[in-house]
Structures are given as structure tokens and as C-alpha cells.
């Protein structure tokens, strides 16, 4: 077998099994005596539970709720904090909050029973929007002011001084909506007991997150619960913490019943009763001199977190750290607030807080440019961060920034400069452009201080097994990681094994999130491989490595000062549109992008990520509307919450720049989230130019464009 080179074009290792339907997903597993579970949820956004009247349960049927948690356990799911209850108890805080689990052998009977449970509530006035929460509608949900978490960063001079010197101030508020992950496979898990240990099969990104989150329900340790990841059909962040919400109740049920129990959400449950991207409300106040130069930006960022913290504080931090976008703004103060509401808790979604602030700063910069008569691309490029520039967290950009080259590539491919000049505002055709980045891996020294990732290679004869906790969820990691191992060892990818992780067998390599897998875990596997290659003739042995943080890059997690990220992915996207003046439908006629991801480990996978990320971002900006007025999501299915089809956007032209990253495997940086982070702003820029409108929110379907036109 020939050795696999890192730049070889290969077929994804999981492609054939998935295409043929041979891959085994959670819903494909059955076990002897297996029972089914159906989740009973709150039907109101806020109130107290007065009574739960159960129909008579036939023999072999159970209703599992908070009362079934043993005395040594606690009714809490340990995500970042421990505030999200496994079962609502006494009160409910959002529509869809878990109250109990019906368990039994026949799904028909479960359905019947679920329709005959009568839960009586005393309803309270809910707070649904960020504005509701600020106004403390219905009284505070969390603390005295609904502030679940907050932070600020500052750079340069005090804001009062900056604004005193300003010739003018440009202020605007920009809002983004909920976004649903719509992963192909809905959420699913099965709890059972194997070899005397609680074992959970789950469709999940982060198996070790689940065991950590649920063990305390039974007063157990993380190591007492075994999680086996099943082949996972998409996640996008929706299976980072959320599987805990399925696995917690299942574990309590398993403790009582001790038979295999399967819980699968149908699409409607997955739409209505799962986490979403945080809606945001971002106010940017910019001090300008008489020529339109930026003196400083004062930002206030609100993220709607729902009533439980889940990942909100971390999502918010990333949002705040990306609030200046790719720009070196001399003076900045940005405050971020995660606010509590009575909507389903918001959580991780590709980009993890960065897309909201990046959309806001891009749109804001573009509006300032237009106000002063500058081309947005030219104006923005004056402020590009460079190597050694001070960041918003008073750290520095460590790598070379290739944005000027990337702009050049995208402008040439799209004919941006000519089109930008020739297309007259409001005449139906427009081109827009955006710049964006994404800090790779956990913030600051989190990789060292919090995760301490491990990876292991095990050699048996001439085969090598990768043992990591990282998961394949459609992003291609089974292929990427095997390729890194094979290329490092100088053997064929056919000689590498890498199974879906089982937490009892593999070391914890940290969550499969934060665009960290290739960059961090890939590098660990490379380091293992380097040692294994030297010792190749020693027979059968294994090599395990722990993450080591590069020296000289301080970070203070208390004050949020220092080098927040060692390496960023960078992006530039241009989008050209034609507006139908009769219907306000927008047709995208061209998409061009250039990304800096260090070095591409597998160009075909990267191509897939670029295509998918950009289309998902365009869907976010144009059509993916998820409304929640009184606590209930209005869109319940894939026919009213629409995501783009292959007919909606044209073939993309894409390119990469080569900028090898010192601490990544073969020079690779993170890229899975980066490619989501900017096409939305380019699209909105193009729409604004085509129609002569100013946009302050996304999504913008035709009816919202109509409103914006009426407002002009």
C-alpha cells in the first residue's frame, strides 16, 4: 500500500457507507427488551406546575420525573454551570422544558398516554424578546435584572475622551434572529447497562460532555457513565450540550427501569424543542472625525440566552472578542450581556457567537463608508489588522494577516471594483463584500487550563488505531485525522483505524467544537505519530500526548486580557445579487470567496465546508426566519422554516491562500466555523446597494425588504 501524502486527493472514508445507507445511526440500534421513551414537556413559557394528573399506567409503563432522582443525586445538568434542570420541578421556564419521560414497550401506548396526561399550570407573564427581558416583563427570571452573564473589553483611551474629540457620532442598532440547526439526523440517544455500567449511545459531538453533565443526577462520577457516540448525521453545534437534555432523563429512567431505553426526536420536536442560535441586539456607537476616520467604537452586545446559562457565557465571550471584526480600531469599549428570557435556551451554533457581532461590525462599517462616500471595501481595508496589531483584548495578532491579498483575489475574480462603481444604487443590481475571521480553538489558555486534551495512537502490527474523543459529525474528521496520522507515519490511510469514540476506551481530547479538532487534536495526533515513526520497529506499543500551550502568550480569564486566540482563520466574500423590483425576491448571481486556513489538510473536505458554510450563512441572512412571539416558535417544520436548496444559490468560486500555522498539523488552522462567519454581511451589502435601502436586521426575506423600502 502506498503511503498517503497530506495533499493527496482521497475519497472520504465514510462516504460509501453513508451513501449506501449502511452507516448505523442511533435510531438503527435495537437491543433485546428495549423500551421507548417519549418526552413530556412544558406547554407554557412561564409559570408554576399545580398538578400533574396521570392516566393509569399499564404494567411495564413508567413516568419518570424529578421525584425519581435518588437522594444522592441532584436535579441538574452540568454544562458550563449547573443551572439547567434535568426535569422541571415546581415551575417551568420555557415551552418545551422537560417535565418527565414516559417509558414503555409500545410507542402507540406512549402516544396515547402522552395525550392523556393533564398538567395544570398557573401561568405567569413571560419575557420573550431581549427588550422584554431588559424591561423585566413579568418580573426577573434570573437575579434582579435578568443578566445571566456579562463582560467587557476595552482598548486604548477612555470612551468619554474619544467621543469628546469626535466630529460626529454614528450610532445604530443591528439585530439578528434565531437560527435552527436543521441537522439531517434529529437528536437521539439510547440508555442501557453494559458490563454493569450505565452506558449511553448518543448522536453527539462531545461524548465526554454528556458523561460529565449527567453523572451527578445519580450522585456518580463522570467515569461511572460510558458514552458511545453513534454515527452522527450533522450537528452544527446543536449536539454540543443539547444531548445532555436527552441523556439526563434517560439515565434517571435507566436507574429506575434497568432495561435499554430509546429516545428519538421527530423533526417537529427537533425544530420546536431544541437549542437555537442566540438572537442578538447589538448597538454600535462610533466616534468619527470630519473625514470619516474612526476614532473609537463603543459597543453594547445583548444575546438572548433563554432561562438557563448552557453555553451562553462562552458564546457571548467569543461574540465580544470578535466585535471589532478584522479591524484595528484604535479605541474600543465593548460590553456584552447574556440576558435571560423565557424562550428555549440558546446554545452553540457554528460560529459560536462570532457571526452576530461580525455581521454587526461589517454592516456598520459598510454604512459608515457609504455615508462618507467611500467604497466599503476600500474603507474597510484601511483598518485591516496586521501581524502584531493590538487586538480588542489587548493581545496581539501573532500571525501574518493576508487580507490585502485575499481582497485582491476576490476583487479580481468578482470584478468587484468595476461593478461597485458601475452599478448605481437602487437600480436592481448590487455587489457586496465582507471580511471576517474566526479565532481557532478555545479562548486564551483554555486549551491548557480547562481542556488538557489528550490523544493516543496504538500500533498493532502494521496497523495504527487513533484513540481520541473527537467525533465525526459530517465535517470530515474521520478522514482528516486519519490523513494526518498516515502522512505523519509515512503509511497508507488504509492502515489507520479510527472508531466512533467510546469514553471508556479513549482519552478525552476535548469537545468537537470551536474549530479546534484539526488544529489542536490533529496536532496532538501528529506529535504522537512523530514519536511512533521513530520507534516504529519497537513492535506493538502506544503513544499518548497532552496538549502543550506555546510559551509567551499570556491570557487572563478573569479580566479577558491577553492573546485570546493564537491563530485565526480569515475570510473575504463577495456576493452579487439581482433584485426583482416587482416581488423583492433576491437572486444571487455570483459568490466569490477566499479563505486563509493555514494549510488545507484535505482540499475536497475544505471545498465542502466552504460551500456549505457560505450557503448556510446566506440562508441565515435571507430566508431562515424563526419567530417567537409569545414563547412559542411559529415555524414548526421544514416547509415553514426553510433552509436553502441547491436551486437557491449559484456555483461558488472559491480560493485559499497558503499561510502555514506554526502550531497546527502541517500548518493547518481551524476552518469549520470561519466559512459561516461573513457571507451574510456581503449579501446584505449587495441587497442594500441593489435596492437603495439600509438594513439593520437579518433575516431579510422579501416581505421584510418591502418594509425597508417603505421606510425609505
Amino acid at each position: 500500500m502506498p503511503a498517503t501524502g497530506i495533499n493527496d486527493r482521497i475519497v472520504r472514508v465514510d462516504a460509501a457507507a453513508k451513501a449506501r445507507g449502511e452507516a448505523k445511526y442511533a435510531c438503527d440500534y435495537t437491543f433485546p427488551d428495549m423500551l421507548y421513551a417519549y418526552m413530556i414537556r412544558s406547554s407554557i413559557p412561564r409559570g408554576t406546575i399545580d398538578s400533574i394528573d396521570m392516566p393509569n399506567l399499564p404494567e411495564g409503563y413508567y413516568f419518570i420525573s424529578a421525584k425519581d432522582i435518588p437522594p444522592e443525586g441532584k436535579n441538574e445538568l452540568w454544562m458550563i454551570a449547573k443551572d439547567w434542570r434535568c426535569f422541571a420541578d415546581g415551575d417551568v421556564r420555557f415551552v418545551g422544558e422537560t417535565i418527565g419521560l414516559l417509558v414503555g414497550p409500545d410507542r402507540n401506548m406512549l402516544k396515547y398516554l402522552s395525550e392523556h396526561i393533564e398538567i395544570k399550570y398557573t401561568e405567569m407573564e413571560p419575557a420573550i424578546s431581549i427588550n422584554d427581558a431588559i424591561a423585566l416583563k413579568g418580573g426577573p427570571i434570573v437575579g434582579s435584572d435578568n443578566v445571566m452573564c456579562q463582560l467587557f473589553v476595552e482598548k486604548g483611551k477612555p470612551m468619554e475622551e474619544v467621543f469628546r474629540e469626535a466630529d460626529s457620532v454614528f450610532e445604530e442598532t443591528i439585530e439578528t434572529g434565531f437560527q435552527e440547526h436543521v441537522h439531517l439526523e434529529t437528536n437521539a440517544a439510547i440508555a442501557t447497562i453494559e458490563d454493569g455500567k450505565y452506558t449511553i449511545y448518543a448522536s453527539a459531538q462531545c461524548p465526554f460532555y454528556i458523561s460529565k453533565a449527567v453523572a451527578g443526577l445519580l450522585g456518580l462520577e463522570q467515569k461511572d457513565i460510558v458514552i458511545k457516540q453513534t454515527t452522527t448525521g450533522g450537528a452544527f453545534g446543536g449536539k454540543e450540550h443539547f444531548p445532555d437534555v436527552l441523556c439526563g432523563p434517560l439515565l434517571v429512567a435507566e436507574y429506575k427501569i434497568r432495561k435499554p431505553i430509546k429516545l428519538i426526536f421527530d423533526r417537529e420536536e427537533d425544530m420546536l424543542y431544541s437549542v437555537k442560535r442566540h438572537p442578538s441586539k447589538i448597538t454600535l456607537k462610533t466616534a468619527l472625525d470630519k473625514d470619516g476616520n474612526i476614532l473609537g467604537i463603543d459597543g453594547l452586545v445583548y444575546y438572548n440566552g433563554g432561562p438557563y446559562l448552557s453555553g451562553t457565557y462562552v458564546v457571548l465571550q467569543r461574540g465580544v472578542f470578535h466585535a471589532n471584526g478584522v479591524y484595528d480600531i484604535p479605541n474600543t469599549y465593548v460590553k456584552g450581556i447574556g440576558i435571560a428570557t423565557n424562550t428555549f435556551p440558546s446554545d452553540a451554533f457554528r460560529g459560536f457567537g462570532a457571526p452576530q457581532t461580525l455581521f454587526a461590525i461589517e454592516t456598520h462599517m459598510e454604512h459608515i463608508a457609504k455615508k462618507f462616500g467611500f467604497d466599503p471595501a476600500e474603507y474597510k481595508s484601511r483598518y485591516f489588522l496586521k501581524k502584531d496589531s493590538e487586538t480588542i483584548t489587548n493581545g496581539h495578532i501573532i500571525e501574518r494577516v493576508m487580507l490585502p491579498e485575499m481582497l485582491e483575489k476576490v476583487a479580481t475574480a468578482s470584478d468587484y471594483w468595476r461593478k461597485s462603481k458601475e452599478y448605481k444604487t437602487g437600480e436592481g443590481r448590487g455587489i457586496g463584500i465582507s471580511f471576517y475571521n474566526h479565532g481557532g480553538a478555545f479562548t486564551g489558555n483554555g486549551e491548557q487550563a480547562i481542556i488538557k486534551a489528550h490523544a493516543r495512537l496504538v500500533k498493532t502490527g502494521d496497523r495504527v488505531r487513533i484513540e481520541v474523543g473527537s467525533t465525526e459529525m459530517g465535517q470530515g474528521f474521520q478522514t482528516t485525522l486519519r490523513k494526518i496520522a498516515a502522512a505523519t507515519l509515512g503509511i497508507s490511510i488504509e492502515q489507520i483505524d479510527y472508531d466512533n469514540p467510546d469514553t471508556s476506551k479513549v482519552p478525552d481530547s476535548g469537545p468537537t467544537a470551536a474549530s479546534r479538532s484539526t488544529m489542536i487534536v490533529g496536532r496532538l495526533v501528529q506529535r504522537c505519530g512523530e514519536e511512533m515513526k521513530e520507534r516504529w520497529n519497537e513492535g506493538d506499543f502506544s503513544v499518548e500526548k497532552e496538549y502543550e500551550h506555546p510559551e509567551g502568550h499570556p491570557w487572563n480569564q478573569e479580566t479577558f486580557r491577553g492573546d485570546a486566540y493564537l491563530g485565526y482563520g480569515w475570510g473575504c466574500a463577495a456576493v452579487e445579487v439581482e433584485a426583482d423590483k416587482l416581488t423583492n425576491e433576491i437572486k444571487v448571481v455570483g459568490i466569490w470567496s477566499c479563505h486563509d486556513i493555514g494549510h488545507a489538510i484535505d482540499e475536497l473536505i475544505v471545498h465542502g465546508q466552504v460551500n456549505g458554510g457560505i450557503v448556510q450563512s446566506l440562508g441565515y441572512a435571507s430566508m431562515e426566519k424563526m419567530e417567537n412571539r409569545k414563547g412559542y416558535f411559529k415555524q414548526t417544520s421544514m416547509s415553514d422554516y426553510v433552509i436553502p436548496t441547491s436551486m437557491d444559490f449559484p456555483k461558488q468560486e472559491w480560493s485559499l491562500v497558503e499561510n502555514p500555522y506554526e502550531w497546527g498539523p502541517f500548518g493547518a488552522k481551524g476552518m469549520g466555523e470561519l466559512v459561516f462567519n461573513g457571507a451574510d454581511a456581503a449579501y446584505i451589502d449587495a441587497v442594500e446597494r441593489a435596492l437603495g435601502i439600509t438594513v439593520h436586521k437579518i433575516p431579510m426575506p422579501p416581505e421584510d425588504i418591502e418594509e425597508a423600502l417603505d421606510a425609505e
Partner: protein
Amino acid sequence: MGEMIYVPTTLEEALQIRKETGARPLAGGSDIMVQGKRGIGLCPELPYSVMIISGLDELKGITASEDGSVTIGALATPSEIASSSIVPWHVRKAASGMGAIALRNTATIGGNIGNASPKGDLPQPLILLDAYLVLASERGERTISVDDFIIGAKKTALMDDEIIKSVVIPHSSFTYSYYRKIGMRRANAISKLSLSAAMTVQNGEITDFRASSGAAGPKVIRSRSAEDIIRGRKIDEIPSLKEDFLSAWNDAISPHAMPEYRRHTTRRMLEYFLDEISRGAEPGIIGEE
């Protein structure tokens, strides 16, 4: 628990079952099965009996008559309709834009009419073209215009013993035609708004003029009194009549959600159709790319 399911093999048998049990016809099932869905691992259930009529040959096929009318069997699928050269353009166009390919191969014209959704794709052009239905029962057959058959959202004039047998589209010959569906995306989308318009001109005189609006009220809207403002007048009078017509049409539609968008867009599309004709557009389809 589950109601009875019948599978008749002839129309005669189906009409007998329909009369005796009131079982409702199920053809492609693309609306009914969704209504009956109950979740993962459970068969759909309906609160009424159904008969699966997809095997009835009497309800299939698309044929042209000597008088120029076209008869479409109730079981014809949108795919068959879209690819039939004898079906009038407005209907073909609407059929070709319904849902996704799988749905177009499964759904039926009879079902799309019987479901009577204001957002249904086919009733809108059928009502424009004064199409009528042949309804069969053991008592015999009767005809009723599609416009009269659909009473409102999800309400029809179908009697308990009747089955939709076929749709007949009378002959028409338009000088100018227009059709537009605005979906939530470019494919596989439910209609947000749709509009058909048509005009026949002879020696400068407008001998026929019609329009129909879908998803702009509880049922497809056609206002013959608004059409009369234009019909029978001269082409060069359009500019002076346009405003009255647009205003009358706006009064006729009653969109519930997104009212401004639906009203303004309907108005702009109709105005565009009339302006194009006024400025001397080539006969044929207006606005086709």
C-alpha cells in the same frame, strides 16, 4: 384507533363505498398523510375512513376534446400535467413549480383541489381559466366550476357521496399571459403569493381580460367586476383605466399575514402586466426570462 381503509379497484366500487361509508378519497396522500402523522415509529392515523383510489383508471389521463377543451383526470400528477403539451400554459407552469420532484410525482390535481388550501398551486390558474370539475356519485355526474367548488380555506362543495372525477379546462386563446409564484425559496417551497393574468386583444380591443390571486385570501381571488373595468375597452385606454382596476383588485383580495407585502406585490405585478401591454409588448408570455 385506526379507521377503515378501503381499496376500490373500479370507479363504480369506489362510488358505492363512498356512499355507504363516507370514506374519503386518498390518492397521492401528500396532504392527508402529513395531517395524520403521529411521530417517530408510528403509522399515521386519520380520524376518518379513507379509500385509496390511486388504482382507478377511470380517473387517469389527460385528453383534448374537439371543442378545444382539455380534460385532466383527478389522478393526474403535477409531473404529468407539467409535461403535457395539451394542457394550457398557466396550469403547466403552476404544476412545474409545485413542491419538490418527489411531491410532483406523488400529488394529484384532484387532491390539490380537494384540499382547498389557499396556498394550493393548481386552483389559482384553473380558476383563471374558468375550469370546472366533473363530480361523480352513484346518482350520476354533475359539473361545478372550481371557483364555486372551493368555498373557503379547506372547505369545498363536495357532497358526502361524491368523488372528483376530472377537471375540464375550456378552450381559451390569449394574446398575453402572465404567471408568477413567489415561494419561500426557489424550489421545494409552499407559495407565499401567486398571480395569473391573461388578456386577449383583437384589433386593438380587449375582448378578454382576467386575473387570479393565490395565497391572498381564504381562497383564490378572482374579481370579475374588477376585470370588467378593463375588459371590452381599447388597448390605448389602459393607462387611464389602470388605477381604477388596481384599486378594485386591491379591494378584492384579503391577505391575512404579510398584508402589505402581498398587496403591494400583487399590485406591482398586475401593473407591470398592463404596462407591458400598453407599451406594445410582443404577444405571448409577459415577463418570461
